[in-house]
């Protein structure tokens, strides 16, 4: 039996709508699921992660349990800091990206120039340089002009914000592309029924741009989560910071401890990234509309 007979075209069904004739237009709408390989890949990742837990538990049992548990406690402490950084970087980056990206599509020369300057500046500098430089500058300013005695904590968060600005510059480009992907005919139609410019933007352009941009934004979220490890350079006591701190000592004691540290650090990043990516995917599915499936990354 030929393949196309075994897998008849699935007519799109949503909210009780059934389309009887699969005409050419509808045919292109059938949901294209990922090749099986990718699904297996995901399961594989989960399996490896699970094995990682087993292995590390095993090692903890076999060797110095108390020390291994102590390591985990420190790592979780670092994980909490990573979580805090992510909780700042993702929303701030998203908001910055949204407004500057939108600004770049504006008719106003000033808004466009501001958006472009922002994107070009923060996209061109290595995030590590941005973080170190901004937190040093912040320390200097806080000490010399605001007479803060211990500016370390504030400077740390300035560094985190710098990372958010960096991520925002990438997201601005995503948002801009999303807005530009909305055909001008949509605006003509919005105008023709009497919607105001502002209504067109909020009711027509942004809802469509949002759907198109979401996968790329999710990708950027996944990427910036791992970039929070850079704040260890300015003394942010996050996950990677603790991992590298515990490393030499573990190396001296027992090589298996090194393995435990690495597995646990990797696992914690994996869990966080996985959760965020899944959340974005869930939002994607919630707002999914045939005809507005985002372009693949």
């Amino acid at each position, binding site marked *: 039996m030929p393949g196309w007979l075994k897998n008849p075209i699935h007519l*799109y069904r*949503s*909210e*009780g*709508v059934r*389309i009887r004739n699969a*005409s*050419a*237009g*509808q045919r*292109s*709408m059938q949901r294209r699921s990922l090749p099986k390989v990718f699904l297996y890949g995901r399961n594989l990742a989960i399996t490896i992660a699970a094995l990682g837990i087993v292995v590390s538990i095993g090692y903890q049992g076999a060797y110095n349990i108390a020390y291994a548990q102590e390591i985990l406690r420190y790592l979780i402490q670092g994980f909490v800091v990573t979580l805090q950084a992510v909780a700042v970087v993702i929303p701030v980056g998203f908001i910055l990206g949204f407004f500057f990206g939108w600004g770049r599509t504006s008719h106003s020369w000033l808004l466009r120039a501001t958006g472009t300057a922002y994107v070009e500046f923060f996209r061109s500098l290595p995030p590590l340089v941005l973080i170190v430089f901004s937190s040093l500058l912040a320390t200097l300013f806080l000490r010399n002009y605001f007479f803060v005695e211990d500016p370390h904590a504030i400077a740390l968060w300035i560094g985190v914000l710098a990372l958010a600005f960096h991520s925002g510059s990438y997201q601005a480009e995503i948002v801009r592309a999303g807005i530009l992907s909305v*055909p001008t*005919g*949509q605006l*003509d*139609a*919005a*105008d*023709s*029924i*009497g*919607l*105001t410019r502002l*209504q067109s933007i909020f*009711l*027509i352009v942004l*809802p*469509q741009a949002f*759907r198109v941009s979401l996968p790329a934004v999710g990708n950027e979220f996944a990427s910036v989560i791992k970039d929070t490890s850079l704040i260890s350079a300015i003394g942010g006591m996050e996950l990677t910071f603790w991992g590298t701190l515990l490393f030499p000592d573990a190396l001296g004691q027992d090589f298996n401890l090194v393995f435990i540290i690495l597995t646990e650090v990797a696992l914690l990043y994996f869990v966080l990234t996985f959760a965020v990516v899944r959340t974005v995917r869930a939002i994607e599915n919630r707002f999914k*509309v*045939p*005809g*507005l499936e985002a372009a693949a990354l």
Partner: protein
Amino acid sequence: MIKIRGIHKYYGDLHVLRGIDLDVDKGQVMCVIGPSGSGKSTLLRCINLLIQPDEGDIFLDNVRINSPEIRPEWVRQQVGMVFQSFNLFTHLTALKNVMIGLTRVKRVDAAEAREKAEWELERVGLGDKLDAYPAQLSGGQQQRVAIARALAMDPKIMLFDEPTSALDPEYIREVLDVMSRLAEEGMTMMVVTHEMGFAKTVADEVIFIDEGRIIEHGSPVEIFERPGHDRTKAFVSKILG
């Protein structure tokens, strides 16, 4: 109903409309024909102010609409427009496409808007496609939703900008049928089209535009069978093949 006097439109050095005078009476169906680039679409877009003419006056029910005191949104509520490429809002169902003008422009409450939108979709034969998204509809169905969307605003006049040009041949009929019925119901219409069959049977008046000027106007019979102007003759013989 529509009175146009001496409108000009320039795109940089390009002089697209070179002094158009035109009257469309209530209940009249006017077909606009002409070669591509002749200014047909620009003319249509001037009437609902999607394009502002550079010179001249456009009156809608004796109100000069191309003036700074007039909000374009106010004009557009009264002038329905159907596009060549349908331009349905991709993220909204057929029903929501029709409702959005009612709820957001006319501020009708949701239940009433829904009822009206369902009725308009029923009218164009799509009562069973309320919850379908544009991508799930054929071109002909999309264009009929677009007509329903424009009609829902109770416009005084409907503008059709080559409504069947982007359609596969098998869907042209259903759209023209809807338009013919509208004409029968007494809707004032201005239609840019190359569907000569439609123009012949439905139009009260046909105008031929070339290079931004009205070259000739008259009844369909006059224009298609006894064109007075050489350019009209040449064009008509080309499209009638």
